[in-house]
């Protein structure tokens, strides 16, 4: 058994992971990045729009914070939001100092543009490829600093002690499957583990996320005892290409593109979804309108609507939206100068995630998280465009720094079960959590109740890591050995149920149906098997494990969605059409609780450094 030892292990090498690794290295730690993809393949590279940072005169971090809190529909925590807005200018300039190719104004300064929900044009960008530049710039620093990268290493689980209370647990490392060789190896972290595994879009059958965005890190942290926060808040983007989920920027509607249905109606106006602004309404409004049209039989092939920009003329289109022509042609086979583009809503961003404080620390000692997999919470119920990339660099850096110090720095945001303010209760048709308790299945599906000796409490790090490696080895063996269901069928059914019931529209009955479907997925997953017999580059096994992670997360998300009986931000409930501030300004927390997920709430912190944010109606 190979055990690699480093001070800090960063799981994931997208924007958040790379920034964390650099920060930890600057603290003097010996750092390793462990990533299932080579760093430059991470989905941060797909971000187009930009990075919000109050850099200019006339702008201030306070204004950025105000906009973010309002955008969050008062579900973001002020200490997190204020930290984001205070640190973003410095972190953004840090990228420039590392050579990032930002777009430039005439005076040679970095360009900024307006973005939805912002009171100042503070979205700092590099063409339509901001994420690509951000990712590559930071990877260059990793090369320069000689930070060790274990690429194409799939992290299967964390090595954590067994204390009853997650707040007493210690994280000592993780276990990774070397994709090229099939070896299962241990990674011991002397100081800390930072999880930065990105989004969870693969829960849905249609998403702007990458195939690799399967929420592995969030699922692992969840099973290790770190709670998931506000998972029900999922942002859907209204204009994605139907066959791939590739995102078509709001810019098309901004320039005057129009949406219509099979009746040839400009439905945003004609069906009264947004009488004043029509296509320019906010993301969630447009997404719901499109789906209503499709559900009521006015969609094309019962699947999508059309977005037409031909009337803008070739010149204007080529001048301002040239990349859209390429995207539509390359990925959908449609030339938007000749015919309208097909579009439909797609999953875009998971606002919730692993509960952390403003230093990136979870309630488990030695375990940190940053980026889209984490929930600090900056975005609350709704993320503003351009606020995710600054989150990566601001909280990535903080998580890396604190992991290197293995300190429990003071934080205003509380984490773990002790932060609970209220028990939750939901009426579920099936009992959520692990099904069946037979040893063999539990081993194969990565369950936590494997019978392999007593609980490890005060055991040394090495022992905890070794046991974790043994467990994961047994899991791989079991999955390879037996025959059974192909994970792709289970994943397909999970995605379908989530898309049918836990999408833009949510209603009690559908959410319950989803919980039943998820339960059924769990049942079937007991029979999952990998049919590729090879140890060499076995992606079958990776995807099989990913599917288990998706199931865990989908369930937590759906539980939150069922519990939250109000309409706030991205979370829409048919039976509950208004925001209920008296009752619902609180975070939804789901804690794994050894396989029996438990729902509870913790307060939202609206008190900032200098002022308290008063909930207002979110209208623009």
């Amino acid at each position, binding site marked *: 058994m190979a055990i690699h030892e480093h001070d800090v292990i960063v799981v994931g090498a997208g924007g958040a992971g790379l920034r964390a690794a650099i920060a930890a290295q600057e603290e003097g730690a010996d750092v390793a990045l462990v990533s299932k993809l*080579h760093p*430059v*393949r*991470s*989905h941060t*590279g*797909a971000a187009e729009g930009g990075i919000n940072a109050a*850099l200019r005169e006339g702008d201030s971090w306070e204004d950025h914070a105000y906009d973010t809190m309002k955008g969050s529909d008062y579900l973001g925590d002020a200490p997190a939001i204020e930290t984001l807005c205070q640190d973003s*200018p*410095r972190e953004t*300039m840090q990228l420039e*100092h590392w*050579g990032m*190719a*930002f777009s430039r104004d005439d005076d*040679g*300064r*970095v360009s900024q543009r307006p973005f939805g929900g912002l009171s100042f044009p503070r979205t700092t960008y590099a063409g339509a*490829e901001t994420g*690509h*530049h951000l990712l590559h*710039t930071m990877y*260059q*620093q990793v*090369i*320069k600093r000689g930070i060790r990268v274990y690429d194409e290493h799939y992290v299967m689980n964390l090595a954590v002690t067994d204390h009853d209370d997650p707040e007493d647990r210690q994280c000592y490392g993780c276990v990774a499957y070397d994709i*090229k060789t099939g070896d299962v190896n241990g990674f011991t972290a002397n100081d800390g583990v930072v999880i930065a595994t990105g989004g969870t879009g693969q829960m849905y059958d249609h998403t702007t996320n990458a*195939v*690799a965005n399967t929420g592995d890190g969030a699922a692992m942290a969840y099973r290790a005892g770190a709670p998931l926060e506000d998972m029900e808040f999922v942002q859907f983007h209204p204009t994605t290409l139907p*066959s*791939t*989920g*590739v995102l078509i920027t709001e810019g098309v509607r901004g320039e005057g593109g129009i949406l219509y249905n099979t009746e040839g109606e400009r439905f945003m106006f004609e069906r009264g979804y947004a009488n004043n602004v029509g296509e320019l309404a906010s993301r969630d409004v447009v997404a719901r309108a499109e789906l209503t049209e499709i559900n009521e039989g006015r969609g094309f092939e019962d699947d999508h609507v059309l977005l037409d920009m031909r009337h803008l003329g070739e010149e204007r289109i080529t001048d301002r939206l040239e990349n859209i022509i390429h*995207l539509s042609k*390359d*990925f959908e*086979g*449609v030339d938007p100068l000749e015919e309208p583009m097909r579009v439909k809503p797609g999953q875009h961003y998971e606002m919730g995630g692993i509960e952390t404080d403003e230093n990136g620390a979870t309630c488990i000692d030695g375990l940190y998280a940053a980026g889209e997999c984490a929930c600090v919470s900056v975005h609350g119920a709704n993320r503003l465009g351009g606020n995710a990339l600054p989150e990566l660099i601001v909280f990535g850096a903080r998580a890396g720094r604190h992991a290197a110090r293995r300190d429990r720095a003071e934080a205003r945001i509380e984490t773990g079960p002790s932060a609970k303010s209220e028990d939750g209760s939901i009426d579920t048709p099936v009992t959520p959590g692990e099904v069946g308790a*037979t*040893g*063999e299945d539990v*081993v194969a599906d990565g369950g936590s109740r494997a*019978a392999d000796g007593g609980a490890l409490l005060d055991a040394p790090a090495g022992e905890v890591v070794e046991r974790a490696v043994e467990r994961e080895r*047994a899991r791989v063996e079991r999955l390879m*050995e*037996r*025959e059974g*269901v192909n*994970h*792709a069928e289970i994943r397909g059914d999970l995605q379908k149920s989530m898309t049918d019931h836990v999408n833009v529209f949510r209603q009690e009955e559908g959410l319950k149906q989803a919980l039943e479907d998820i339960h059924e997925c769990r049942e*079937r997953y007991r*029979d999952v098997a990998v049919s*590729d*017999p*090879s*140890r*060499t*580059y*076995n992606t*079958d096994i990776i995807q099989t494990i990913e599917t288990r992670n998706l199931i865990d997360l989908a369930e937590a998300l759906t539980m939150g969605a069922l519990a939250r009986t109000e309409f706030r931000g991205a979370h829409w409930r048919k039976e509950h059409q208004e925001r209920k501030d008296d009752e619902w300004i609180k975070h939804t927390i789901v804690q794994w609780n050894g396989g029996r997920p438990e729902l509870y709430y913790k307060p939202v912190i609206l008190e900032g450094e200098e002022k308290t944010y008063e909930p207002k109606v979110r209208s623009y």
Partner: protein
Amino acid sequence: MSTQITEREEESTESEPETETEAGAETAPARQRRMDEKRRRAADRETERERERAGIEGDTRTLKVFRYDPEVEGKEEPRFDEFTVPYRKGMTVLDALIYARDHYDSSLTFRHSCRQAICGSDAFFINGSQRLGCKTQLSDLSNPVRVEPLPHQEVVKDLVVDMQHFYDQMDAVEPYFQGDDVPGELEEQRQSRENREKIKMSTRCIWCGACMSSCNIAAGNNDYLGPAAINKAYQFAMDEREGEAVKQERLEILEQEQGVWRCQTQFSCTEVCPKDIPLTEHIQELKREAVKNNLKFW
């Protein structure tokens, strides 16, 4: 279409669980029931899949995919497998591969992630040229579509090639910014629009390796830096934010024996680059810079 080998199938039928303690947790009848249930469900699903397979009507496309696995019997010798997939408008080569894997053979192996030409994972040799699977419409190709791993790179398995050499070449040009006078914490280094525009195309590289695979020179000479690495160096050498001294160092790296002078301007890299980077032009420009530079020091 299956690559499952008989040996393995025999092995996996009803083998006793290895870990006794675990099996003991379940009573015999319960276990029997579960096994029956499992078989029943497996059978149900198989029929369903059969139906699905038979149900492919209308437009289809056929992929001929290169298969190789050093440790699986029947795959040690490279071969081509055929997969017929239902076609719909907008379908890419990557979509077809995913369909084939998820419906016919879960051991079919290829890298992919973003599905939008930004992660650079899925450069394959498609109908005889280097292209990204996700950026290639089936409608633009003649049927059947032949999909092979990138030539001139060691094949790990199926369509997966070893990228290490490519990464090593990238590393060899010091692929990181080396600005010398960074202003205050909250202030940027100035850069003119023109200069940013000049380096723009060079910054688009997604490390897919298509260019390197298409280059005859690189194929015959492992030490040649290759188009992608030279382009990376171009990005920094031309960036006015780096000082003159660094530029000198960069030109020295590029001018060495295995640098720019190896390029014979065949344009194959430029033709295959999915990000339309004018690679050959950049290499030519660096040659001119190098000459100018040498004259200056004479």
